[in-house]
């Protein structure tokens, strides 16, 4: 919105910056202030006159220009421009001025510059350096009537404020609306625009107006004008339209746009002689009715679309876009001017359905899509008629206003205590009344409350809280004090799942893993790359109906793809990685929101050591291996005090190494999957062979989490025995462990530690040797050597019996 236009509507003597700041702080959000000359605002740039012009003594192509830019302010500049003459009025920039870089997009600060021995004190500027055009050939010659010595910004160019208004405030989407706000904030009166007095009489032979659906179109006014001469609109009007971002077309179209910008109410002009039956009808579209809109597209209308029609055909999509047939042409002399009120939701649906959100008619559709007051209709019509008379030679024939069920103005009861109740601030009734008065609200005092009626343009005021906000905006939100709440603190609930999750995070960070958080939306193609044959490892994902990109079009049903992607991207610049993520995966459920299953994902890949690249000092080089991923998960279970899952069957884990992975279930669902990534899958992701993953279902962990049981240290000494024995290669450790535990008996086996697994000539072909340490301790007595020896023999005998194990010395 051009500031000069606003100043025409409200007489406020403050700077643009203060105006913008005060509006902003009163809830009229200022997005930016655009000054002529860009952000620097033509600071230190003046209107100057070339008083003398001389040749540069040392250069043929340069001139010395003496510029006067005030009564006694003169400077000499060196210039290469050829279009200067003595007496020329130019833009002169002092040293220190910020200018647009003529050869780039940035700016630069002007410094004194010596050219061929003579210092140029400032510069005379081209269009491009001023930021008002692209010409950089010559110096911009200004209107000779401009006052020499004036700040350029004061006499040339237009400062524009861009607002970002909430959908509740269509009334403020106009110069008059911002003027009303300015008036209320600064306590200065508004200057209403000049209106043509209208009498509501119109010969039906000229034009009839009819509403067929008064919900879709509550109000429809029109004026009939003749003697119209189509031509360009006045320059000042065109400038304002351009400053507001609209393209000038012709006087009639420009006037409708001008009134829309000024008052917020869109209008539409028709060539009256081309209206069949001399009628304008607001009705719903007929089934399979078609319309060629102004953009040249033939549209099939929907039965819920509101159209403006004549007696034969639809002329336009009401409030959204006109049709080609009834468009104003150069030869038009008689116009029917529509000014109406439409149901906002219907306008929005029509705009969307026909894909017209960003179209040329969108300024009107955007306003009609909000709850615009019907009370604007007669005012805007009168203003447009006035401008058509003044600038298009039009004569008013008559006007009509169809408004079958006028909208009632709400009365809101505001108790004085509401202000303190909602704001916590002390605001006197007088002060509140004054704020409301300034905003154009009427109010009457009834004992402890006010009965408040908003101005008719304010469709957003319905409840006392709305009025409280209005008062607060005007007195200033700074009046709200800072106070700590009092009152009863609510009882809090425990959140076991979240507590366990946070403990898991602590444990994994404690293991030295880096936490990651990756996109919950992933590329569905990833899911086909988690197994060698592309078969899924998880149920089909939920799809997003309107994704931003294919790469983020499904909700992940597994964390694995995200972990692999993160690892692959990081391993381009490092040799090893140890990460984890705790996030939900999303699993579809019929007729319900998906199951958001919180999952712990761990990934180890590449080098485990050294921790820092190349730093093999004191540590060797070591790749992550199976025992690491197993150790991390086991360590997590120990740290969280987890009991066993109810199903100890080791199942295949799809996508992982067929003989280097397994999964476990609890309560019928997969609780736990871990192992080496299938090398073929690793290849697909360009990951090393040594890539290990674990995926753990948090809810299953919660199901087996137990309260820790205290162990009281026993004061009797422990006895230790080291045993080594040879078994067949296919005997798993778990079986050995079970047998040792069973055989230890009453001696009290406190610990069993695997010390080594040996394969080689001393064990024999197809055999391996386990070296273990068993620790015995009785809680009630010191064990004798004999007791310990007996227990050890029992263990050795059992191993011999079960596995044919030969005990080695």
């Amino acid at each position: 919105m051009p500031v000069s236009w606003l100043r025409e509507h409200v007489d406020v003597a403050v700077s643009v910056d203060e105006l913008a700041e005060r509006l902003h702080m009163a809830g009229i959000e200022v997005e930016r202030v655009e000054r002529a000359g860009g952000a620097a605002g033509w600071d230190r740039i003046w209107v100057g006159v070339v008083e003398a012009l001389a040749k540069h003594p040392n250069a043929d192509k340069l001139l010395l220009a003496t510029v006067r830019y005030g009564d006694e302010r003169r400077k000499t500049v060196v210039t290469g421009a050829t279009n200067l003459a003595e007496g020329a009025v130019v833009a002169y920039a002092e040293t220190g001025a910020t200018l647009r870089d003529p050869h780039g997009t940035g700016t630069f600060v002007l410094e004194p510059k010596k050219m061929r021995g003579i210092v140029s004190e400032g510069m005379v500027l081209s269009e491009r350096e001023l930021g008002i055009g692209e010409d950089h050939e010559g110096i911009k010659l200004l209107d000779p009537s401009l006052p020499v010595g004036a700040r350029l910004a004061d006499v040339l160019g237009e400062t524009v404020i861009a607002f970002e208004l909430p959908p509740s405030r269509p009334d403020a989407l106009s110069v008059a609306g911002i003027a009303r706000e300015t008036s209320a904030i600064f306590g200065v009166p508004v200057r209403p625009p000049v209106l043509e007095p209208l009498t509501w009489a119109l010969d039906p032979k000229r034009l009839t107006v009819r509403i067929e659906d008064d919900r879709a179109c509550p109000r429809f006014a029109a004026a009939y004008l003749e003697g119209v001469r189509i031509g360009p609109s006045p320059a000042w009007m065109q400038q304002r339209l351009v400053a507001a971002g609209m393209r000038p077309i012709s006087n009639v179209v420009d006037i409708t746009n001008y009134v829309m910008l000024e008052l917020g109410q869109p209008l539409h002009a028709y060539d009256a002689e081309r209206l069949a039956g001399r009628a304008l009808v607001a009705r719903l579209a007929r089934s399979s009715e078609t319309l060629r809109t102004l953009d040249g597209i033939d549209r099939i209308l929907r039965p819920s679309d509101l159209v403006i029609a004549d007696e034969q055909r639809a002329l336009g999509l009401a409030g959204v876009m006109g049709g080609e047939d009834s468009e104003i042409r150069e030869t038009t002399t008689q116009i029917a001017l529509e000014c109406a009120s439409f149901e906002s939701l219907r306008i929005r649906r029509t705009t969307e359905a026909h894909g017209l959100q960003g179209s040329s008619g969108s300024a009107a559709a955007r306003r009609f899509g909000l709850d615009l007051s019907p009370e604007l209709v007669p005012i805007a019509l009168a203003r447009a008629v006035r401008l058509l008379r003044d600038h298009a030679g039009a004569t008013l024939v008559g006007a009509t206003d169809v408004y079958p069920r006028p909208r009632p103005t709400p009365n809101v009861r505001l108790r004085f205590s509401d202000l303190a109740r909602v704001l916590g601030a002390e605001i006197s009734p007088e002060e509140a009344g004054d704020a409301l008065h300034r905003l154009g609200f009427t109010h009457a005092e009834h004992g402890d409350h006010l009965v408040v009626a908003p101005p008719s343009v304010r469709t957003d005021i319905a409840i006392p809280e709305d009025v409280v906000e209005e008062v607060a905006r005007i007195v200033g939100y700074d009046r709200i004090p800072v106070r700590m709440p009092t009152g009863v603190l609510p009882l809090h609930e425990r959140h076991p799942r979240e507590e366990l999750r946070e403990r898991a995070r602590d444990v994994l960070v404690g293991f030295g893993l880096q936490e990651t958080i990756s996109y919950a939306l992933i590329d569905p193609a990833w899911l086909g790359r988690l197994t060698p044959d592309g078969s899924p490892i998880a149920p089909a994902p939920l799809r997003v109906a309107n994704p931003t990109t294919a790469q983020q079009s499904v909700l992940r049903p597994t964390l694995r793809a995200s972990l692999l992607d993160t690892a692959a991207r990081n391993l381009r610049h490092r040799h090893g990685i140890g990460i984890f993520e705790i996030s939900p995966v999303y699993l579809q459920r019929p007729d319900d929101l998906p199951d958001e299953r919180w999952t712990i994902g761990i990934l180890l890949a590449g080098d485990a050591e050294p921790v820092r690249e190349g730093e093999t000092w004191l540590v060797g080089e070591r790749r992550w291996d199976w025992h690491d991923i197993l150790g991390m998960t086991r360590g997590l279970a120990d740290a969280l005090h987890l009991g066993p899952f109810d199903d100890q069957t080791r199942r295949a884990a799809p996508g992982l190494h067929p003989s280097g992975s397994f999964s476990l279930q609890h309560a019928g669902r997969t609780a736990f999957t871990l192992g080496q990534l299938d090398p073929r899958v690793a290849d697909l992701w360009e990951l090393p062979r040594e890539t290990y993953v674990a995926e753990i279902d948090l809810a299953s962990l919660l199901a087996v989490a137990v309260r820790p049981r205290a162990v009281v240290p026993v004061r009797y000494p422990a006895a230790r025995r080291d045993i080594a024995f040879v078994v067949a290669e296919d005997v798993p450790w778990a079986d050995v462990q079970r047998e040792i535990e069973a055989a230890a008996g009453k001696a009290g086996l406190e610990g069993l530690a695997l010390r080594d697994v040996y394969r080689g000539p001393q064990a024999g072909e197809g055999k391996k040797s386990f070296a273990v340490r068993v620790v015995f301790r009785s809680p009630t007595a010191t064990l004798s050597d004999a007791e310990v020896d007996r227990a050890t023999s029992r263990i050795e005998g059992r191993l011999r019996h079960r596995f044919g194990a030969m005990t080695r010395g």
Partner: protein
Amino acid sequence: MTTTGGLEAIAARAEAEIAAAPDEAALDALRVRYVGRREGEITAALKELPKLPAAERPVYGAAANAARARIEAALEARAGAIRAAALERDLGAEATDLTLPPRRVRVGRYHPITQTIREITRIFAGMGFEAVEGPEVEWDYYNFEALNIPPGHPARDKFNTLWIAQEASVAMAVAAAGAGRPRAQSSSTQPMLLRTHTSPMQIRTMEQRRPPVRIVVPGRCFRFEATDTTHESVFFQLEGLAIDEQLSMADLKGVLYSFARQLFGGDRKVRFRPDYFPFTEPSAEIAFDCFVCDGSGRTNEGGCRTCGATGWIEIAGCGMVHPEALRRVGYDPAKYQGFAWGGGVERIAMLLTGTPDIRLFHQNDLRYLESV
């Protein structure tokens, strides 16, 4: 047969040799030679005892024991001296190069979003706000309708919603509504979406509980958004809600003031500016004075970069819960009122860590993550 005088001579010789012993090994050899169980000279002398006449035995025995005591004392003294000398040598020895790097320990770190959520929830927990979480995939009802944003409400445009593709009737309605923003009309199946804010948990919590309520809600949110340095399509929000009989905007200011002091340090100022949200009335945008330039907008290097030289950091939206939202969950707006606020977690993390680009949070480049 050694005489008593001979025993003394042995002791004297032993003492001299012990005093000259250079190390523990030599000392051990002397111990064996003089007082060793089998071969020791004093031991051997004692073995002679029974051969003596009974009258001489006490004198001889006492002399032997005295000699042994002398030798053992000398051994002990010398052993102590040798250990002390060794320790002295160790302490004074050429030190290892103390500037060598350590045996490197693997250090894990929390993602900055986790750090920030934990920090914020901890601060609000201190003010009696319980952290609760809710579903990321939501019904239209909780994300919009119950928050006073019915279908077709113009405020929906601001939320740039990502919708879940649904089967059968809903999918058809979605398709019929056009490609841009499907909006299902079916009454039998509700439209499902990716929540655009954490505010649905205001409704879900109030449905489950009676006042007083004080909660904060951290969580993942989604928007149909072109990404740039300050916008992400997947991001985290933190929401707060307090409902009681007497809570006003002044209390809201107090809570956020206390929060800002704890999070950013110093005596922060809180600024409210009128704003618009359909589910609060009155509504405000919250700003704190900048913790880097103390609200001046300037630092020694020029304009403050943290606050864009404005002196204020806008951080969240807030307001008094709309009476309509209270009514919908069965709270009597004549009796209960309260406030809510919500803002981006990443924004705070960016401010606290100097992270210049919001996309760094989801890119998981370890060079970044290990730095914060």
